[in-house]
């Protein structure tokens, strides 16, 4: 994995982490409801897990697709999906219909998975994932294939891992700082429409995918 990829996965982790709808706001609310900081911290682990599963699912789909169809077709398909999803979210404000504040580890994991998936968090990583060398590209050298597969898997796991870690750290820091220091008045002043920005980010990711496809090599 090159430097651009690392920076990309980490930056998107930061971007996902600062979005109140992805986790920190719920963590703060749970802390306030139970009147203890440990409830804030405790919520972060299932949130990171749910986020990682959502991202991981997209990674698996893309890796599988890479085995089946040509890079160009896949790239264009990803670009269309990204841009279309972003455009849809730009004009149509919607949100997942989760109900419930009394949540355990499993609930929070599912909630985080739903939130990340519904927002297209994993999709946003597609341009980076498409830059990765794939196992299939080397399939001509049979005796190297398994080694390459292992390398590939390690790289993908690192990608999901580093993204989730940066998401976890940012969500956690924001949650604790809001809970302990700033307070929720912040929501009224500083919560600009990240969902709208998010939809624009998805469209940009779509465009970047196409650009990389035709001019990147």
């Amino acid at each position, binding site marked *: 994995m090159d430097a651009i990829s690392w920076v990309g996965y980490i930056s998107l982790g930061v971007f996902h982490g600062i979005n*109140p709808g992805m986790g920190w706001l719920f963590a703060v*609310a749970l802390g*306030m409801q139970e009147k203890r900081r440990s409830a804030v911290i405790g919520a972060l682990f299932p949130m990171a897990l749910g986020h990682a599963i959502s991202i991981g699912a997209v990674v698996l789909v893309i890796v599988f697709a890479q085995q089946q169809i040509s890079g160009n077709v896949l790239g264009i398909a990803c670009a269309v999906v990204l841009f279309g999803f972003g455009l849809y979210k730009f*004009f149509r404000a919607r949100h997942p219909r989760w109900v419930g504040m*009394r949540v355990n580890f499993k609930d929070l994991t599912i909630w985080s998975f739903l939130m990340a998936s519904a927002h297209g968090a994993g999709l946003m990583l597609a341009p980076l994932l498409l830059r990765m060398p794939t196992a299939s590209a080397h399939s001509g050298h049979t005796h190297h294939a398994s080694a390459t597969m292992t390398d590939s898997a390690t790289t993908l796991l690192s990608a999901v891992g580093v993204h989730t870690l940066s998401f976890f750290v940012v969500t956690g820091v924001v949650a604790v700082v809001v809970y302990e220091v700033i307070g*929720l008045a912040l929501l009224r002043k500083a919560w600009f429409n990240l*969902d709208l920005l998010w939809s624009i980010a998805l469209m940009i990711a779509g465009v970047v995918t196409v650009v990389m496809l035709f001019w990147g090599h």
Partner: protein
Amino acid sequence: MLQQWKPDPTFYPSPKMAIEAPAEEVAYVAAPRDDGKPDAMCVVDLNEASDTYGQILSRLELGVRDEIHHFNWNACSASLCPYAPHPYIERRYLVVPALRGSHIYILDVKPDPKAPQLVKTLTADEVEARSGYTRPHTVHCGPEGIYVSALGMAGTEEGPGGIFLMDHYNFNILGQWEVERGDQSLSYDFWWHLGYDIAVTSEWGTPPMIENGVSLEDLGARKFGHKIHIWDIRHRKNIQTLDLGDDYQMILELRPAHDPTKAHGFVNAVLNMNDLSSSIWTWYKDGDDWGIKKIIDIPAQVPENPDDLPPALKDIGMIPPLVTDHILSLDDRFLYISCWGTGELLQYDVSDPFNPKHTGTLKIGGITKSYPHPAAGPVSGGPQMVELSRDGKRLYFTNSLYVAWDNQFYPDGANGWMVKADVNPDGGLELDPNFFVDFGESRAHQIRLQGGDSSSDTFCYS
């Protein structure tokens, strides 16, 4: 629909922050009628600096004999709730249910807050076909949509009544809310403790029991509601029924604590069949279960001249207080109780929800009494729907309950009015002598204050 870049400025994460909100400048008041002219949504000027302070600025006519009732906003502070946040929706539309006509009107207040526009009508047929219910009554904005309660089942006009959901973006009716209603059949009000995933519903009567005036036969047979129901919101399941006993008839307005970490609330029982008193009860979380306890008894009064009593009360010879609404301040400290029969409005300090302290009384109107207003002299009706500003300093109330019931208890006429009282922060209140809104032959019922009030919003953070 283009989205907003900033959260709606009228949304507040916590009740504490909402108390700091700027003062309201207009009120929206439901004005049903009994004379064959259409019901109307009226806008009242509340800006003391304005030349038209205390006057009706506009009337938007709706349907004839609709009995528009407990309307509310399309969106409120619940939009900030953490599990489904969508703070960029606007508090812009009033969702107005017609308790008799069964239509639901959507009014847009954004183009001109002083003159709402009718932008959509869900007809009775549509409401009944899509929700399965009829006679929609109370509206609350929830984190994931608009909740509406209704008194009866479509087609039968009998129970069970219940709750249905509406989409808060396009106002489509999404269908019946309950999955397991247990032994709940009668319906009326509902609200919730979102911090505990709990909803609470109360019981009035079915449409035939109320629509031609209170059915004294059904009352004698103790057929009106005497229970409240506790629901698991996540599974939409009735998990516990709290029975006040059938001595108590008509259990109406639910006022849960605004602080989401608190798990108690207040509800009024209109009539004790033994002595015609009204009462206030506190429901509370008790370990894994919920309990309910009576905290205030408000006795019936003896009239000076029994001949002044309306026919419905002649045989009884007493004036029941008929407590039919109450409101809890956003700091969960003061409860204001309207005694529609005796013409009194009581203020209690309920900081300790099991040991209320009586801190103030206002007198205006009342059966046989007709306590005067300083600006208007003797008035008809008595204190009924009551609403409080977010800062807890200004209390507004109107005098009409339900057209057919007004006629029964105030047969000499029930011309609508709205008044205001100034509240002392340490307890006590007095009528504003410069504020008396005369609705003429219209009745005046539910009040909503611009930007939110003490019964419009739910908060997910303490």
